[in-house]
């Protein structure tokens, strides 16, 4: 990737509100309605006069709307996909209008369990309705309508972001020219549900959790959940290479239950960094949304994708054992059964699930070229 023309991409978070009245409220899969919903989002680039260059990016479990650039030049770090998105980059903001919003249920500005319930004037906490991936997408659809975009050139996402992208193609087939689904799956398998359950237990059994009515973030439980999840984002190979059996600060074992190994120290660090920026209730709600996610709705995936019109680009990574190549191939098979234009590539990588954030050059080239051809056909 050539250096970007101008790395001073600045973005400002914006808010979009909807659902003050009964009719405008967001009807959720659980049957309840969400009122006075806020979506915090960011945009990059300019919407073309023909409105044919809009790309909606979906963030993963713990990501947010801040995809690229900085909010101010003093920011220490740019957005989470800054290597991918920006002027002259693979998703070129000189060419495309890029949108990303925080999911509902999250803790980065969109309505979630730590928002005020308009009915009671108090925090929702565990009174917040359990939302699904499809609910997140329905909320985003309101935003896209609000922005005056009739059809998106592409919906793009990795991991949970890929689930949302796939759901967009099913729910709003006429609004999506193409779907780019990276390191994702059409339904959560029992192994992943099991990992989420352990994380959820860790949070709910934290001494500070107080049935979600905490005043202090239940850090111990949340950090434990994060450490467990973080292991599933890596691979045996990448961990062996990075840490091996290296000891952290000592020459020999402590013969006690201290942090002896480098990998233990790394996980603790990841857990601690995470609790500084993420809310425990949101973690419960979002992992629940992922647990419930099944594009096939309990039936046949090809049947569920009958409504699909979008072209697909499906990408997996060879060492990803959370959402495997075989799971991507299930999506490909269902797409081909519906005679859709579908491309699939497995990128060779040792990074595990995290490869979708790390293998930027090879993934980026695929996305750039795919988008280019999609816009030619738009």
């Amino acid at each position, binding site marked *: 990737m050539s250096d970007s023309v101008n790395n001073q991409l600045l973005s400002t978070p914006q808010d979009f509100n909807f659902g003050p009245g009964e009719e405008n409220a967001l009807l959720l899969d659980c049957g309840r309605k969400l009122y006075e919903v806020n979506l915090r989002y960011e945009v990059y680039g300019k919407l073309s006069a023909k409105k044919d260059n809009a790309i909606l990016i979906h963030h993963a479990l713990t990501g947010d709307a801040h995809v690229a650039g900085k909010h101010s030049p003093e920011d220490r770090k740019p957005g989470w996909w800054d290597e991918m998105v920006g002027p002259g980059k693979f998703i070129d903001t000189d060419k495309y209008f890029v949108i990303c919003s925080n999911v509902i249920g999250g803790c980065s500005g969109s309505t979630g369990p730590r928002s005020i319930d308009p009915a009671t004037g108090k925090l929702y906490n565990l009174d917040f309705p359990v939302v699904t991936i499809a609910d997140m997408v329905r909320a985003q659809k309101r935003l896209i309508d609000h922005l005056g975009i009739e059809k998106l050139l592409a919906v793009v996402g990795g991991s949970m972001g890929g689930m949302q992208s796939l759901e967009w193609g099913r729910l709003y087939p006429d609004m999506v020219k193409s779907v780019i689904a990276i390191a994702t799956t059409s339904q959560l398998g029992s192994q992943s549900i099991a990992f989420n359950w352990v994380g959820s237990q860790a949070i709910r059994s934290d001494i500070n959790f107080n049935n979600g009515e905490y005043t202090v973030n239940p850090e111990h439980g949340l950090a434990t959940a994060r450490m467990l999840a973080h292991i599933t984002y890596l691979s045996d190979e990448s961990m062996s290479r990075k840490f091996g059996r290296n000891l952290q600060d000592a020459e020999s074992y402590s013969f006690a239950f201290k942090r002896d190994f480098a990998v233990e120290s790394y996980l603790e660090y990841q857990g601690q960094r995470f609790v500084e920026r993420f809310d425990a209730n949101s973690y419960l709600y979002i992992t629940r949304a992922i647990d419930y996610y099944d594009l096939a709705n309990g039936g046949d995936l090809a049947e569920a994708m009958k409504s699909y019109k979008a*072209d697909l*680009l499906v990408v997996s990574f060879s060492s990803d054992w959370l959402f495997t190549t075989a799971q991507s*191939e299930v999506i*490909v*098979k269902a797409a*081909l*059964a519906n*005679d859709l*234009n*579908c*491309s*699939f*590539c*497995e*990128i*060779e990588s040792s990074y595990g699930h995290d490869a979708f954030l790390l293998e930027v050059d*090879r993934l980026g*080239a*695929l996305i750039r*070229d*795919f988008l280019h*051809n999609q816009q*030619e*056909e738009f």
Partner: protein
Amino acid sequence: MSKKAVISPETTAEAIISRPDLRRMAELIEPGSRVLDLGCGSGEFLGFLKKRKNIRPLGVEIDADMVAECVKRGIPVIHGDLNSNLDYLQSASFDCVLLTRVLQELTNPEAVLKEVVRIGKRGLVGFINFGHIRNRWQLALAGRMPKNVALPHEWYNTPNIHLGTIRDFRDLCDSLDIEIIRSFPVGRDRSFLAANLPNLFAYACIFEIRNKK
């Protein structure tokens, strides 16, 4: 399975037309049809057919770099190995399935040939004829495995692990209940000989096949 050389779009059309087997295959493809190319390489041939014949293409390719080339060309492509399961491709979902000169590189050509006629209403298979006189000549006189323009490798490093003759191919189709609708021997400059004595004078042959059942 993949041809490593990536040719620019301008030279591609000329290169394809200059290759008699591909030129002939292109003539056999219905405009506007749904075409699958197994072992499609960088998608040159499908790109050519899309442009010239307005076909709706899909490729299958094992090499990730070639897959990326297909995506660049705007050719839908599945990254996969022809030697493993192809059941993600529905029966009779393509008007035509192409297998251009890759049959001899496959672990199990028999299984793939069955897949060609399952997935496609018809198949077009390009076949290298090991029975060509030049190969026989080299083997008979030098007593060594043939090495020439069509078969440039040594016996121990060749990707061509399943070489056969035109007669062998016909026997295999027969045993698999595959009908050979038409065949088009491809010769170099002696087209008269290739047409009449293909097993001796055609260096390759295109078979148009379908399931008998």
